[in-house]
């Protein structure tokens, strides 16, 4: 895929070229949205919004890492979604038991992106990680997802969230420390080589 050529075509208004870029990046963008928001529906909405915003503002892309540019847009869409949720808190549709406690949600179990076999083998660990990510503050969560889940380096992460490198280092260290504490509660789910000491 000639990414540069497609970007130039998209900047000229070629929607087909931009759609080819979407096909190349939609998994990564959706992953970022889901790991930050923790809900499939919200992640779906944020991903779609991000691509629409990206197309409308693609003329402002001046080169560099297109992946970082896209992740910045989806991260901003996630912040918007989180702010919207804070303004209008919604009652979860997950079923509750007689005592009002939430029954384990199908969303918590199901992972539409994986086959059933993969889901069984890896679902529990993924769910544990997501549960711990959800406990982090938004700023820490975004940084740890960008660096440890998406695999960006510090400079790219800095470009995505628009903060200096020092902020990235600080937030990432704190986020990892809190993730470590959280994951200790799921130690039995971790592979032996990854089990953490309490």
């Amino acid at each position, binding site marked *: 895929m000639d990414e540069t050529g497609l970007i130039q075509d998209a900047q000229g208004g070629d929607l087909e070229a931009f759609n080819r870029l979407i096909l190349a990046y939609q998994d990564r963008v*959706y992953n970022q949205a889901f790991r930050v928001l923790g809900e499939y529906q919200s992640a779906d909405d944020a991903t779609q919004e991000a691509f629409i915003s990206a197309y409308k503002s693609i003329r402002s892309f001046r080169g560099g890492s297109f992946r970082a540019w896209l992740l910045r847009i989806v991260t901003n869409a996630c912040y918007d979604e989180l702010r919207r949720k804070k303004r209008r808190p919604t009652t979860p549709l997950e079923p509750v038991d007689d005592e009002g406690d939430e029954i384990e949600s199908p969303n918590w179990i199901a992972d539409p*992106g994986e086959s059933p076999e993969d889901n069984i083998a890896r679902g529990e660990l993924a769910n544990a990680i997501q549960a711990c990510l959800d406990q982090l503050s938004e700023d820490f969560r975004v940084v740890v997802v960008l660096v440890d889940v998406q695999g960006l380096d510090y400079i790219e992460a800095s470009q995505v969230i628009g903060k200096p490198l020092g902020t990235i280092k600080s937030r990432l260290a704190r986020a990892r420390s809190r993730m470590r504490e959280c994951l200790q509660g799921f130690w039995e789910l971790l592979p032996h080589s990854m089990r953490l000491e309490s």
Partner: protein
Amino acid sequence: MNDSERYLEALSAFLDGELTGNDRERIEKLLQEDENLQNWHEELNRTRRVLRSTPALRAPRNYMLTPDMVGQKDKTNRAFPILRFASAFAALLLVLLFLGDLFVIPRPLLAPARSVQIAESIQLDEEAAVAEAEAFSVQPPDAPAELLMEAAPMEGEPAAEAEYDENISSSMDSSPTLEKSLPTASPFPVEEAEDILAGTAGTLVVGESEIEPESSSGFLEDESRSNVELRSYIRFAEFTLLIVALSSGIAAYYFFRRKS
């Protein structure tokens, strides 16, 4: 920021290879000396590996954009109905024009044939008339026998003979007059043939005389010429409409296939 936070940050950056120069050497030295720091390092490394083992999700659907989503007017959607209408309209006009050309507008191509037919008839009549006149003019050699027979009793009367000569001469003199008056008596008027042939011959020769077109044939001549011009315009319009109908139809089909 206390020391533990500072060490935590340094260890995290060290794991990612983001420390350089003195900072890196310093952490490496501390890790060799401080067992507690080694444990932190190990825990952070495992946490980092756990996070990096997070399975990547596939997008649940395609997020490809449509022109409606981005407020972009689809040129294909606009072009298709226009081209489809243009093709249908041009085809309809073409059919109407063709039918009108076929049944309504006079066909001048038939006129020359008819004019030739009329001219030939006139010529035949003319020849017949001339032959009749000749026959009449040849009669005198026979006539004297009859006349002589009738006039035999009056043989020797110079006056009768002179009258006979005068009759013959007068009848011979009158033959050209008869020749000229024949066309007027023919069932096909000369004017008609003249009118039909107008524009090609200009004049019609009947026998030895040349008849100049009369002023009344000018209108018919103009009408015939305008008919020919009209037909050429119609041919051009039919050809243009055919091209428009075909090209817009093909383009509409192309956009339809592209859209679907």
